């Protein structure tokens, strides 16, 4: 169903947000539509998920530090990061920034105590049980273990984010 009054529908970990124009349709009307829709999910019969492969050069400034803190070698960190297929949970924080999980348990670390003021675009990072690619230059507190040249966000694309909630993602190791 498409409603002109609904401007955005945004999935997240445990929530779904429906943004609507209250000048066009009332909160009560939208609420009852949503309540009815929850009971009857529209099943997508095409169960082949989009698999996105992202080439990564594992030479991030925090790779050695991550290895030290996890008790692994840098090579083991790389292997464990690129040997899984991740699920895309949610896009947000910055345009095209998509939270992916779950990491191999041995790679789970708290965020950096001193966030960087400027993380380069394309940085591949980990924090907690999650991994992500920084699409744009932003501040950030995750550990940078690599970089990709693939554009995660492109305003000329539709949708502009490369990875969207529900997609599957693999990181493919490449030499720089």
């Amino acid at each position: 169903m498409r409603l002109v009054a609904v401007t955005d529908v945004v999935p997240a970990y445990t929530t779904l947000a429906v943004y609507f124009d209250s000048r066009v349709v009332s909160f009560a009307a939208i609420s009852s539509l949503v309540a009815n829709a929850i009971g009857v999910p529209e099943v997508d019969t095409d169960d082949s998920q989009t698999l996105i492969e992202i080439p990564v050069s594992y030479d991030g400034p925090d790779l050695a530090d991550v290895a030290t803190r996890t008790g692994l070698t840098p090579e083991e960190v790389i292997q464990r990061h690129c040997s899984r297929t991740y699920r895309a949970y949610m896009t947000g924080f910055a345009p095209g920034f998509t939270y992916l999980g779950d990491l191999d348990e041995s790679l789970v670390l708290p965020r950096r105590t001193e966030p960087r003021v400027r993380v380069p675009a394309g940085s591949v990072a980990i924090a907690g049980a999650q991994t992500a690619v920084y699409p744009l230059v932003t501040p950030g507190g995750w550990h940078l273990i690599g970089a990709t040249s693939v554009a995660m966000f492109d305003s000329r694309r539709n949708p502009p984010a490369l990875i969207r909630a529900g997609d599957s993602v693999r990181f493919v190791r490449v030499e720089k």
Partner: protein
Amino acid sequence: MSDVITVITSPPFATIQDLGRTGFRDSGVPVSGLADRESGLMLNAILGNDANAAMIEWAVGGGSLRFDCATTIAVGGADAIISVNGAAVYPWAPIVVADGDELRIERIVRGRFVLIQVRGGIDVPVVLGSRSTLLSAGIGGLEGRRLRTGDRLPVGDYVMATRNGIKPAHHLNVDGPVMVVRGPQASLFDDAAWATFLSSEFVVSRASDRSGYRLDGMTISHSGPAALPSEPACVGAIQIPDGGTPIVIMPDGPTVGGYPKIAVIRTSCMSRFAQLTPGDRVRFAVD
């Protein structure tokens, strides 16, 4: 000869009105003037007219007017089906018309009074300080009466407006608390936290930009975890991070967030809130 509008087909009820006539109530003279003043102010602002420029207040049915001059007009007030020379035109915008063009009000869809204004306003004589028609006394407007088919209405010379009467509801014009609704995590905040939130005066921090406004003042605590699974947020959401200093999400702010949201600023108060500058004070109230 000055510009003229000719009434081709009059509706059953149309008069000339401006903002009204004050100062003569002690003589029993009612104020008269536009019934829907807000719409009249909008139309005059759209055309660059003085706030008090007189216009046609049109009611009850359809009809048409011919502009015997090249000018710019605007239509507003009640929702109506309107056209110029048979082509649909829109309300609340300047409409450029050529000499001989015909404006037709097909019918009124919703509301009572359609307002039709022209650049320069309708230049009928001023009576007791106003051009408004008062039918009971037979004064003002066009000969103190309703418009009739065949009437010719003089259009005033355009004079740049010195006032337009439009005041958006931002902080320059409005006092009082910014209205909020309870946020998705409102229940994580106990009565004491809510009391603090609603009784405090906050100061807009220097660390405020198009992404978010930080509010200095009392800090607010909650009983939930420091961060929740991130979820979609919206402009106007008031987040309470660890330190307890509220941050309001602004238009360039993140689409998702993990901090508990105690409340969300009502859309109707958002423009006013956005106009606050660092150092400005603000209070919140739930309605």
